[in-house]
């Protein structure tokens, strides 16, 4: 169709006034695994779904600390995200060094957006294929911004990007009016619930999601798995997970040692000797 004629490079407009390469870059964001963000007056929480390629590999890092008062969650080409995080860290640390003051989030976000815009207007570059949810604190309070590959940025009360983010967005849309006055812990709970929506039936475990918080008096940090799992447990949605563990536990109890778990569960799975 017409689309294919005008999508070869980013410096070609389509007759309808669109830059297809930029739109394709935004598609890359939609294909990445989900990331969500929400904020109250004093805190911002970021969460993302971390799917590992296989059981053998580690999870991809999708949440980056940029400074004590700023963090970012990405969706899309994580390599592009990593490079942009490095840029953001650099800008923050240079500002801190010169002014002994934290870089206002709003300014960092504009710099990031301008950087992305450059890639939409050079024939020898391609747009960044990553969407960034920037969470930060400055003099005027807590902020959550979304930076897209087009070079646009928007401020949000709550947002979700990546695959199946619509489910999270629906969840957030229903509740966002209450977020401003939420407590920090309620905000974290809502973040985890929003992530659960994107999993669509899959069991929510702390091993497949990452949560990070920044707030007044609380520098940006990623919550450790134990803490996240505790919060998940309070939702009482891990009943299925207790099943297989309980069964193994019963057999091990007979032996009296958890270490014997391996030996006691060899019910019929012994390798065939030749």
């Amino acid at each position, binding site marked *: 169709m017409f689309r294919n004629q005008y999508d070869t490079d980013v410096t070609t407009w389509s007759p309808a006034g669109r830059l297809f390469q930029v739109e394709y870059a935004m598609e890359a964001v939609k294909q990445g695994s989900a990331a969500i963000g929400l904020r109250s007056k004093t805190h911002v929480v970021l969460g993302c779904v971390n799917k590992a390629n296989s059981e053998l590999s580690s999870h991809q890092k999708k949440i980056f600390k940029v400074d004590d008062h700023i963090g970012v969650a990405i969706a899309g080409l994580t390599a592009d995200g990593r490079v942009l995080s490095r840029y953001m860290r650099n800008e923050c640390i240079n500002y801190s*060094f010169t002014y002994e003051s934290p870089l*206002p989030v*709003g*300014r960092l976000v504009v710099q990031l957006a301008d950087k992305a815009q450059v890639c939409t207007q050079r024939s020898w570059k391609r747009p960044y294929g990553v969407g960034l949810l920037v969470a930060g604190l400055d003099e005027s309070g807590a902020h959550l911004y979304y930076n897209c590959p087009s070079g646009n940025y928007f401020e949000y009360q709550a947002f979700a990007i990546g695959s199946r983010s619509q489910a999270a967005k629906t969840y957030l849309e229903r509740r966002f009016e209450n977020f401003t006055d939420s407590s920090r812990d309620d905000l974290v709970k809502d973040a985890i619930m929003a992530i659960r929506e994107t999993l669509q039936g899959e069991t929510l475990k702390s091993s497949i999601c990452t949560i990070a918080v920044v707030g007044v008096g609380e520098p940006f940090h990623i919550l450790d798995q134990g803490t996240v799992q505790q919060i998940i447990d309070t939702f009482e949605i891990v009943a299925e997970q207790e099943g297989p563990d309980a069964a193994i536990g019963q057999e091990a109890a007979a032996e009296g040692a958890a270490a014997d778990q391996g030996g006691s569960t060899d019910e019929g799975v012994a390798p065939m000797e030749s």
Partner: protein
Amino acid sequence: MNFMASKQPENSLLGPEADSQRTLYPYVTGTSVVALKYKDGILMAADMGGSYGSTLRYKSVERMKPIGKHSLLGASGEISDFQEILHYLDELILYDNMWDDGNSLGPKEVHNYLTRVMYNRRNKFNPLWNSLVLGGVKNGQKYLGTVSMIGVNFEDNHVATGFGNHLARPILRQEWHENLSFEDGVRLLEKCMRVLLYRDRSAINKLQIAKITEEGMTISQPYSLKTYWEFSAFANPAQGAVGSW
């Protein structure tokens, strides 16, 4: 023989020909600046003299200027370098305002920026020959700091430059306290400036006092201090002096 001697690049500031390009000594200088924190903000005093060596040549030099919405800068040392610093700060504040985003550089940020500038120039052996006093109030927080021409910087409840350090700071150490009223602050500064007037030969009897608070900055019209020269010890100063030959 022509060995590969280490040659300076053409724009280097070291070497004999480069001396004309970097500051070796100051020409037109201002003397002390004294400042203190008081209840509502910062009070700063400086006379209006610009000396040309030992000549008290210029007598209407404003050595204190507002910077942005929240800060006040006072300078002693080379006046032309002070004007250069004002130019840098003008640009800095301009770019800050152009963001138009509700954030603004406060006195702490300006002070640290100046520290970086002064230290970097010192490293290039081309200093801005000034001692600066930077004070201001932002979001209820009072800030008062100083930077020297070699980049030494610190904050305190009261600061001074040049002779002020030797003559005014001891008075301030004795008599300064938190939450000075405006009148008390002015009285204290005038006391310091009077001592400087008596004892610093580059001081002139024409000074301004500037005040900066959350609401903004005001600078007084130039005025002079009352002095008394009829102390008996001054009447015949050489009376008790021991002759040397």
